[in-house]
C-alpha cells in the first residue's frame, strides 16, 4: 500500500515536471521509454511512460517495458526508494533485494530523471 502510494506520488511529480521543470523537460527530450517498477511477486507495480516529452503512468506490475526495476518486496522498495540514494540502491542490489530486467542504462537514466524532480 505504502509502495503504491509512493509510486503514485512519483508519477504525479514526473508528470508535473514534464510540464513545468525546464531541466527535467530538457533531460527527457524526445525519448520514448517505458520503465516498470514492480515487486518480484507481481503484486505491486507501476509503469512510467516517457513519450517525446510527456510522462504518463499506469498502475500494475505486468506491463511490457524497456527495463524494469524489480524489488524483492514492497517494504524494501518503499524504504530504499524513499531514501533515494545510489548507496541505498547499491546495498539493496548487493543483498539480492533488487534486480534490473532489460538494459540497466535505462534504469540509470530513469533514476537521474527522478533526481531532477526530488
Amino acid at each position, binding site marked *: 500500500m505504502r509502495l503504491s502510494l509512493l509510486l503514485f506520488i512519483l508519477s504525479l511529480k514526473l508528470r508535473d515536471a514534464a510540464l513545468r521543470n525546464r531541466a527535467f523537460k530538457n533531460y527527457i527530450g524526445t525519448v520514448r521509454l517505458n520503465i516498470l517498477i514492480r515487486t518480484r511477486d507481481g503484486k505491486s507495480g507501476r509503469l512510467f511512460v516517457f513519450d517525446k516529452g510527456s510522462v504518463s503512468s499506469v498502475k500494475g506490475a505486468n506491463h511490457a517495458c524497456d527495463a524494469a526495476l524489480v524489488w524483492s518486496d514492497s517494504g524494501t522498495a518503499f524504504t530504499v526508494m524513499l531514501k533515494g540514494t*545510489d548507496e541505498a540502491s547499491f546495498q539493496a542490489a*548487493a543483498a539480492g533485494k533488487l534486480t*534490473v530486467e532489460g538494459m540497466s542504462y535505462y534504469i540509470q537514466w530513469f533514476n537521474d530523471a527522478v533526481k531532477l524532480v526530488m
Partner: protein
Amino acid sequence: MTQILGGHLVGKYLKEIEKVDTVFCISGGHIESILDSFTEYEIRTVDVRHEQAAAMMAHAWSVYAGTPGVCLVTAGPGFTNAVTGIANAYLDNAPLVVLSGKHPLRDDLKGALQEMNQIDVIKSITKWAATCYETKRIPEYLSMAFRHAVSGRPGPVFLELPPDILNVRVPLAQVPMSARPTRKFTVHPDDWDLRQAADIINNARRPLFIGGSGVGLSRCSAALGQFIDRTGIPFILTNCGRGELPDSHPLSLWDVGNVGIQLGMMQADVVIAAGLRFNWLLQSGAIIPPATKVVRIDIDPHEIDRNRTADAGLVGDASSVLGQLVPLLKRGEHSAWTRDLRTASRAFLTSELELREKPSNPIHPIRLVAQIQKFVGEDAIYVIDGGDTCYFGLTGFSSREKAGVMATAAGLLGCLGTGIPFAMAAKLARPDKKVLLLNGDGSFGFNSMEFDTMVRRNIPVVCVVNNDQAWGMIKHSQELSIGAERLQCCELGVRPYEKMVEGLGGYGELVTRDEEIVPALKRAFDSGKPACINVITDPTVTSPATPLFYQSLKMD
C-alpha cells in the same frame, strides 16, 4: 671510401640501431630508396591498400609487440591518407614513428608533384614533426624521432625526408650514427606524495583500482600483480592496459564489465586510477562522487588534476610508481566489498547474462559474442571495432593475453575502421595466437580491402561481422533524438561481405541462425585463411553505449 645512399641510411638505422624488423607501408616514387633499403637490411614490409591502415597497423604494433611501430608513406596523398591513423595514435598516446616522403626541395613552390605543406598539417596531432634537410643527418633525425615517440607520455612523431637527401650518396664514414637504441626514462614521484597515497590506500574501506593504457604501455604486470596481491583491491583494466593481469584474476571485475566500472566508481571511497584519463567515458571525472578520495598515477603531470583534483598524485611510469608504492602498503582485505560490488553489478546485468545463454532468432549480439567466447576461449586476442559492437565485445570477451581485448574504435577519437588493421598487426606480432576480430558492418567498410593484404601476406585473422544492417549506434541515437520516422544516412541493408572476402582469396561464410555460429567459426579457423563470417544480427538491439553517446551530445 664506402658510399651509402641517403635512403639506405634509413634502413640501416632502423635495423641496426632500433632493431626494427617490420615496417607498414605503401610504395611510392618519393620513397623508393627507403624501400630499397628494406631489401638491403632485411626489414619485413607489410604493404597495405590504404595508408590509413599502415598508420593504424604501426600504432597497433606498438601495442602488441611493445616496441614503437613504424610506417612509411609517400608524399602528398600517401601522407594525407595516413592522417586519421596518426590522429588516432596521438589521442591513444601510441609511440608511432611516421616516415614520409616529400616533394623535392629543389622544386619547392614550382608546383611539384604532390607538393604540399605536410608539417603544418601534422603538427597538431604529433608530439614532434620535422623535415630532414641533409643526408648525413638522417640517422640523427631518426634518433630524435624515436626518442620523442617513447619519452614521457608516448605519442606519434613525423619525419619527412625529401628525395634531395634520399637519392644522393655520402661517405658512410662521415655519417654520425647513434651507438644505442632509444631508451625509455622514468621519473620518481615525490616521497611525500608516495606516503600520502599509501596512507589513503591503507585506510580505504571500499577501494577500487582502475588502470588504463598507461598500465599497458608501462608493461607493469609484475608490479601491478604485487600491488593487487598486497592490497586485495578489486580492479578493472581498460584499453590497452587490459590483460596486464588476466581478466580471470579473482579480483578482476571484468565479469561484470562496464556496470562494474560504473558502480565501482560511484560506490568506492577511494579510487586509484593509473595511466587513465578521466575523459567523456567517465563523465570527465564527474562519475566519481565528490567525497571519494582519488589517487592518480600518470606519466604526464598535467593529467594528475585534470577534470578532478587528486587527493594524491604520483607522477611517473605506472610500473615504476607501483613498485615504489608497494613497500609502503599494508596487507589489505576487501573481499566483502568485492563480493558486494559483484553481486550488485550482476543484479543490474540480469538480462544480459541470460541473453548469453539463450539461443536467439534473430541472433542477439550478446549471444553472438558469448558463442564466440565459448569457442575461441581465453588464449586468444580479441579486437573489436564499431559502435554498439564495442560494448558487446568489451563486456563479453575475456582473454589471458596482454591487450587481449581491445575495442579499438572506443578510444578518444572514436575511430571506426581501426579493427582490421589492429587485428592484422596483432596476428603479425603474436603469430602463435588466435586473433578474432568482431566488426560492426558499418566500420567493416573502411578498411575491408585489407583482406587483400591479409591474403597476400598470409595473415589469417578471423573476422566476425556483427551485421545489424546499419550504422547502429547512430541509427538508435537518431531514434532517440529525431525519431524513427526521420532516420537519415544510417541504414546499410544486408550486404554479402563474406563473398567479398572470398573473392579476394579468403574464407567467407554467411550465418543467419544461432546454431550456425560455432560450426562456422570452426570452419573459418580450420581454413587457415583470412576469414569473414558475416552474421546477421537483430537490427533492433541497442547497447547501453548508444544512450550514453546520445546524452553526451545534448546541449540543452
